């Protein structure tokens, strides 16, 4: 009996580490995320509106995250985790900045993406924290402090030459497209085999291989936006499917109709649209623009 109790005790003790678990990074539900409930919904809306206008004008993304505490991590460790999870800032341009406030720890940090490190240098960030934000926070004026700090950050980033914001709903090439185009991807291989096999069976050897090439060319053009590459890849596929008999109906085990549907299902898997917030009207933010962070910026306290 005692042994059983001891065993149960050990089992329960295994849950103890959960008490020291790191603070979770909240999902990117908007440009201003406040899990402490300090900011009123009006404040959140106003600040989000300003940040959205800034992004539309300049392209760079700034966000605010306020949590009660980051213990047991330091605010630097937590900020870089949050920045890596949210990925604000445009991909390859990395022009994101994140203002993280740990209210009960009395600590705050501006985490700056690679692309903004020239403007929001460590010294500049430190000065914004010490001279602009901390005085407000010391008197308990959180919304005023955040607002003033964001104003300063926007002014600083405005002075930095960045690529113009993209027109809305541009595809570009995103990770899903690259994943599907990678020639070693088994899904791609199967898809191409299916298309080639079905076209040949439907139309005969010559016309079928041309049609297969045409379909693949259209798909590649759709992903990459480049007609030349699409025609090139389509041409290669045509030639290959002309000479190599990929599959017969008995091998695929389908009538052309079923095969076509299967090819279609392989494709409809997912087009999530390029970029993150730039459409502005989307209500669900699955993430930022793909920007990355290197640990630049500065921390401070009040």
């Amino acid at each position, binding site marked *: 009996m005692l042994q059983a109790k001891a065993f149960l005790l050990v089992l329960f003790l295994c849950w103890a580490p959960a008490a020291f678990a790191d603070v979770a990074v909240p999902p990117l539900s908007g440009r201003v995320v406040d899990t402490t409930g300090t900011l009123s919904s009006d404040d959140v809306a106003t600040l989000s509106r300003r940040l959205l206008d800034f992004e539309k004008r300049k392209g760079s993304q700034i966000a605010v995250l306020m949590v009660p505490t980051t213990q047991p991590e330091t605010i*630097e460790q937590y900020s*870089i985790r949050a920045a890596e999870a949210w990925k604000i800032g445009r991909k390859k341009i990395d022009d994101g900045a994140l203002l993280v406030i740990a209210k009960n720890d009395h600590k705050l940090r501006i985490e700056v993406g690679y692309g903004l490190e020239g403007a929001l*240098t*460590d*010294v500049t*960030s*430190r000065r914004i924290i010490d001279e602009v934000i901390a005085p407000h926070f010391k008197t308990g004026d959180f919304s005023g402090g955040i607002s003033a700090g964001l104003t300063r950050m926007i002014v600083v980033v405005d002075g930095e030459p960045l690529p113009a914001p993209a027109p809305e709903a541009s595809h570009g090439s995103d990770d899903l497209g690259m994943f599907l185009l990678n020639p*070693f991807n*088994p899904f791609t*291989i199967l898809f191409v*085999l299916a298309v080639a096999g079905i076209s040949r069976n439907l139309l005969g050897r010559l016309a079928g291989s041309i049609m297969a090439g045409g379909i693949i060319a259209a798909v590649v053009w759709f992903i990459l936006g480049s007609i030349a590459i699409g025609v090139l890849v389509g041409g290669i596929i045509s030639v290959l499917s002309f000479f*190599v*008999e*990929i*599959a*017969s109906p008995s*091998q695929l085990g389908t009538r052309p109709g079923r095969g076509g549907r299967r090819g279609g299902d392989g494709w409809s898997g997912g087009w999530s649209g390029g970029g993150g917030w730039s459409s502005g009207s989307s209500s669900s933010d699955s993430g930022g623009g793909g920007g990355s*962070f*290197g*640990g*630049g*910026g*500065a*921390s401070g306290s009040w």
Partner: protein
Amino acid sequence: MRRFLSVLAALATLSLTNCGYNAIQTNDEQIKANWSEVVNQYQRRADLVPNLVNSVKGFAQQEKDVLLGVTNARAKVGSVQATPEVLNDPAAFQKFTQAQGELTSALSRLLVVTENYPQLKSDALFRDLMSQLEGTENRITVARNRYIKSVQDYNVIIRSFPTNLTAMAFGYKEKPNFQVANEKEISSAPKVDFNPAPAAPAK
């Protein structure tokens, strides 16, 4: 027969990816990129050191041996080569991390000493340098973490079945990771002595 060959060709392509040769290459390049970033950030810190030493000298000339310690540590760091080949040579890697560790200790000694000089601490230039130094140390930490993660991914692939067969066939070994030198020293909290240091003997 042709049908059979084409199916075989497709299968061969698929199995190459599963054997992980490409994955090993990708991870190896990722490690090199992350290592370059680590070296880059250490270099950035080394570049800050002369300015830091000069600004401290202006207020605390008598702390000569501490300042000398920092300058020497920085010189030593400059003399250690840090190329990607270091990753394949554990001894060279050890030398590199040791030199950087000595510079870290020298810098923290300097910082402790500056606590005694309130004029220095309120000097604007010194404050700017301190925020740059803190930023650089943070970047070093982030770069090291990313390097450690990529080495972990690589070592896992090297050691897992079936990719370890590919690794053995092509001669890929595990990559070195950052050790914590002087673990005992680090586990005891550093002592901060706020009593003003006794006046140094005549120079």
